[in-house]
């Protein structure tokens, strides 16, 4: 059997980007609003420990805690790690130290960045202070970073003063934007499918065990759990097996609503794929309608399917594919 060279791996950028919006409880709201006002708040447990950053429940007892206290913007490094190559979105763009800082008045440490000239300038136990961001919104990034500080720790912190946690215009939620950049590769079966589409051919793959033809192929027969590899050209015509009418316009989509989205059993396939139906008023689409793909200029997949004009298919011919 002649061997064919492995096809080139298809690649495409895949960007996942979302603004993660979260509401804040009373303690987190007070803490983050405080940062906006250059005030660092902790929360005191019934055992007398001051937690910074503060939480709403004591991690040891699970008791609800609300007793806010004000701590200093100076503190001591409890451990650190030198970051020679900052990654995107980290607090500083130049090499810096990650530090855990126990602020004066607190019993626990806060993670942040320390701006220092090099690793030789950083050590556990060193004194640091908050460098505030110029523009503050009520977020952990209102602390731009820490910087070295030559003042000694203050007296014993048992007297951390109570704070009401009340501010004008409190922050009640945070928006944490996140973006991750991936490179998507579709795998063998989907690559074969996509390569065939480039030639305006629609291919399914036959299960070697149950002989069913799946389109689009995903590389495995979901019934038998075995790899599919035999390619079978299907369609181009097919039958609408079921459909829905879309009435809400999706963002960035230039298709006028209402339109019909349908399951289409291509001739020769044992699984219906889904696509938009065009070329017919939305309220005239029906089960059994015979359709064919419409390829747009330079399109890499059918833009939509339209009626072929053939008589409708008998229910019995597609009922197994519903």
């Amino acid at each position, binding site marked *: 059997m002649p061997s064919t060279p*492995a096809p080139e*791996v298809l*690649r495409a950028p*895949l960007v*996942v980007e979302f603004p*993660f919006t979260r509401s*804040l409880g009373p303690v*987190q709201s007070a803490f*983050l609003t405080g940062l906006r006002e250059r005030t660092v708040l902790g929360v005191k447990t019934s055992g007398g420990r001051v*937690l*910074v*950053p503060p939480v709403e429940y004591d*991690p*040891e007892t699970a008791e609800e805690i609300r007793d806010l206290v004000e701590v200093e913007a100076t503190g001591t490094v409890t*451990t*650190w*790690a*030198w*970051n*020679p190559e900052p*990654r*995107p*979105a*980290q607090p500083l763009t130049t090499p810096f130290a*990650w530090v*855990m800082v*126990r602020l004066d008045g607190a019993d*626990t*440490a*806060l*993670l*942040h*960045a320390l701006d220092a000239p090099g*690793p030789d300038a950083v050590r*556990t136990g060193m004194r640091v202070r908050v460098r505030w961001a110029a523009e503050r919104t009520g*977020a*952990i*990034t209102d602390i731009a970073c820490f910087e070295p500080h030559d003042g000694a720790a203050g007296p014993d912190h048992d007297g951390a003063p109570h704070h009401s946690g009340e501010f004008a215009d409190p922050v009640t939620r945070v928006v*944490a934007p*996140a973006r*991750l*950049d*991936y*490179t*998507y*590769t579709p*795998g*063998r079966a*989907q*690559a074969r499918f996509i390569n065939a589409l480039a030639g305006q051919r629609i291919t399914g793959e036959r299960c070697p065990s149950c002989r069913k033809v799946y389109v689009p192929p*995903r*590389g*495995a*027969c*979901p*019934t*038998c*759990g*075995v*790899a599919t590899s035999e390619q079978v050209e299907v369609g181009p015509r097919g039958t609408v097996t079921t459909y829905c009418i879309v009435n809400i316009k999706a963002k960035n989509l230039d298709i006028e609503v209402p339109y019909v989205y349908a399951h289409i059993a291509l001739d020769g396939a044992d699984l219906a794929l889904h696509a938009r139906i065009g070329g017919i008023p939305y309220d005239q689409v029906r089960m059994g309608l015979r359709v064919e793909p419409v390829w747009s200029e330079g399109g890499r997949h059918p833009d939509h399917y339209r009626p072929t004009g053939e008589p409708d298919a008998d229910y019995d011919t597609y009922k197994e594919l519903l």
Partner: protein
Amino acid sequence: MRDVAIVAFSQTDHRRSTEELSEVEMLMPVLHEVLEQTGLRTGDIGFTCSGSSDYLAGRAFSFTMALDGVGAWPPISESHVEMDGAWALYEAWVKLLTGEADTALVYSYGKSSPGPVRDVLTRQLDPYYLAPLWPDSVALAALQAQALIDAGEADEPALAAIAARSRSDAAGNPHAQLRGPRDQGEYLVRPLRTGDCPPIGDGAAGVVLAAGDKARELCERPAWIRGMDHRIEAHSLGVRDLTDSPSTRLAAERAGAFERPVDTAELHAPFTSQEVVLRKALDLDERVRVNPSGGALAANPVMAAGLIRLGEAAAAVHRGESERALAHATSGPCLQQNLVAVLEGEPHVG
């Protein structure tokens, strides 16, 4: 309570990238192999449970595609954890203990190659105080390593020795990604050098569990699960003593690990410094063979590396190389969550 055992284990050859394969294409050979070891067919399995993370693929519900590989039609009893497969194994173990099934297929997989895994893992952090700073997984491990150095519990040569031992042991593991000694390399995030960190790669693993006589039927020397437990640390890193892992110790205690010594331990320690923490928490001395497979420092397919520890420990029992083995899996930053299982073989009879 019924006795439940791991009766089969299979894994991929872990590689830096499997870009030519989809997840299900990477996973399927593992599923076939692990079933073949037992002679079971997919339809014979009582319960199926998987572990993976959508964030690695960057696609929602990515695990549903992988289900095609197990033959999920007609409908099967199935569950998924958005965690390492070790936790899927825990769920399957409970299912078998309750008598709801006699056999279970557990699998997990992870492809770290499509995305920046150090950054991807930041999305599992607290979204208020940590995630906005994007502290990557190596940075967080480095903070823990420095804490150990400050406490006098490790130094850079000691960490390098753990790296060297792991990669040397991995020379005998055909599935490992880094096989044989390596240079420690430059600092990635000081004090951790490249050699202190796990390789980034893709891989999958599968395990079959069976209860009682069914296990004896399927496997000559089943690896009986004598106990299994998992515990977590307080959420905030600054609340914890990073040089210790009380959750691992408690899980081990509840799993019965301290009742008698173990001879083998498969520890899920992606960073050299974490092995130091785990050895202390588990009270392991030099008589215990730690990570003869090379461990996560030799192959770290995220979401599968913990299940592989359970599988490797079980395989050592299957082969008669271990009488009593401990397996550990972790999840989250700086050993946030920890699972411990104790596996035992029966003496050969006849």
